[in-house]
């Protein structure tokens, strides 16, 4: 017979005081996280492995996860087809610039809503929410006509200008983030600065902005990523002669034909995978460097609403 004390100990070890802290709970937790995490990593790993396979490895059924050699020719082909150097520069132009400008403008808007009891504040809030809910497709067509009139169609301005005026990608979300953040800042700081003779813009610049740095970083990073991944607006406004990397990937098959003169059938999955990797790479690098800010940013900005 088992000593009840031992039994208790085993039970404690397996299940724990709190089920999630026991051995079984741990195994289930880690098991689930690893399995599901693998689901996310699997396509990436597969893409990477295939992208370094040559034709021989691709058709050889015995070569699955470990290619026989490191074959970088696919990357060279994709590099040429994507016109990588030039397209990357343009992609960065229509990603970085709007991300920075949108962050600045939405922070000004959020600041105004949080700190000044302006008349019509409620209306502004309602309008901001509406801008988030209305599908962009509704106003895309008139915007197209409008931009055509302004002669900014088929240029980076078509992406940059709306962002400058707080009407970029998901601007509403960023306004709300900044609103929450600035609202949490103690008013006493502003007041003491005012007594010291600072005007409202100095207070914003000297006190508001430095204290809201996490919100700025989070907003900028999300803006950056969302602009990077955006294809609908850019395919419509940039026209047929300007390409972002995403758009090149979208038209990879026909681009391949144009760039290499080979038939579209010559595009094998290894080449396509390498192109996809090349496109993910810039955001991946940014993410790895600033990972902490992405994940913790949301907590710090208090989007959850107190």
């Amino acid at each position: 017979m088992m000593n009840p004390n031992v039994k208790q100990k085993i039970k404690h070890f397996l299940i724990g005081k709190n089920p999630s802290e026991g051995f079984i709970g741990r195994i289930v937790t880690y098991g689930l996280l690893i399995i599901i995490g693998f689901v996310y990593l699997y396509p990436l790993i597969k893409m990477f492995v295939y992208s370094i396979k040559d034709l021989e490895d691709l058709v050889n059924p015995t070569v699955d996860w470990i290619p026989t050699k490191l074959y970088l020719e696919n990357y060279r082909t994709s590099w040429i087809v994507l016109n990588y150097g030039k397209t990357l520069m343009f992609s960065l132009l229509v990603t970085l610039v709007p991300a920075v400008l949108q962050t600045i403008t939405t922070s000004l808007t959020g600041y105004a809503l949080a700190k000044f009891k302006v008349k019509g504040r409620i209306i502004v809030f309602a309008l901001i929410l509406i801008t988030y809910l209305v599908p962009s497709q509704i106003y895309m067509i008139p915007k197209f006509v409008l931009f055509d009139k302004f002669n900014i169609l088929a240029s980076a301005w078509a992406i940059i200008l709306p962002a400058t005026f707080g009407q970029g990608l998901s601007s509403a979300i960023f306004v709300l983030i900044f609103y929450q953040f600035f609202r949490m800042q103690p008013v006493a700081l502003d007041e003491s600065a005012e007594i010291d003779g600072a005007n409202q813009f100095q207070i914003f610049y000297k006190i508001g902005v430095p204290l809201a740095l996490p919100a700025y970083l989070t907003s900028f990073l999300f803006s950056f990523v969302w602009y990077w991944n955006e294809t609908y607006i850019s395919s419509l406004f940039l026209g047929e002669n300007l390409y972002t990397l995403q758009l090149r990937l979208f038209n990879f098959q026909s681009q391949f034909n144009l760039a290499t003169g080979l038939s579209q059938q010559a595009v094998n999955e290894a080449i396509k995978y390498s192109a996809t990797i090349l496109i993910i790479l810039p955001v991946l690098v940014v993410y790895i460097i600033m990972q902490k800010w992405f994940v913790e940013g949301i907590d710090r900005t208090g989007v959850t609403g107190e």
Partner: protein
Amino acid sequence: MAKKPLKRAVRNNLVGWAFLSLWTIGFIAFMAYPLVLSLYYSLAKVTLSGEGILVDFVGFDNYRQIFSSAAGFSFLQSVRDFALEILFKVPVITVFAIIIAVLLNQKLKLRGLFRAIYFLPVIIASGPVINQLINQGAATIPLVEELGIIDLINNTFTEAIAVPLGNVFSELIVILWFSGVQILLFIAALQKIDRSTYEAAMIDGAGPWESFWKITMPALKSMVTVSIVFTIINLATFSENKAILHIKNNMFALETGFGFSSAVAWIYFLALAVILGIAMLAIKLFMKEKVRR
């Protein structure tokens, strides 16, 4: 005239609107004006010509066309498919995100690494990349086909339900790719719960199941709504969404054009509003029933 200092309230207003000025200009130029114009276009036949655009007022013709022409019919069909898709996808995404958030909120080794992995989808999930994943078969679970789940679904349900439900299973992984932001939202909400609440509940004899429904879920309540709204809008405006493609393709189609396309967009907006309304109602009812008892 002596210059009097402005009253504090007035000054506050002025400075406030100065801060708001950029947004206000943007809203009028890039939102309000296009919206009004879009409404006008939807009531007109718009043709592009060398000299510019010709707008011919035709009343509700475009809207009538949506409900009577082939182009309109195929759009309506894609909206119906989308609504059904949402019915399956939104609960899957929400439940999945809550489970992952709860798991990630525990004291874990390598928590940072896990979080980084689970946030990956947000970083790389663009239309073309996801398309690439789907096309290359990197996004399906082979098991789903091997077990014959799709066949089972096709045999059990009518086509209207079987197709979207089958899509949910065959695209299970793609669906998971849409839940990065939601996971983050839930984690943020979970971190606001004081751990001692759980301990107190445990001392009072509550099991993990009760704790989940009585402590965790009430804390996540508002976030569930936010997350569902985000999910629906995110799915609805995803650039590979069929209804969205309709709007885009009709813009430059010869027989339909901007006018028809605008009308389609407004109908889509209405449909979306209805879907969101129903979803909010459903959440409210569900929460009343399950949480806070």
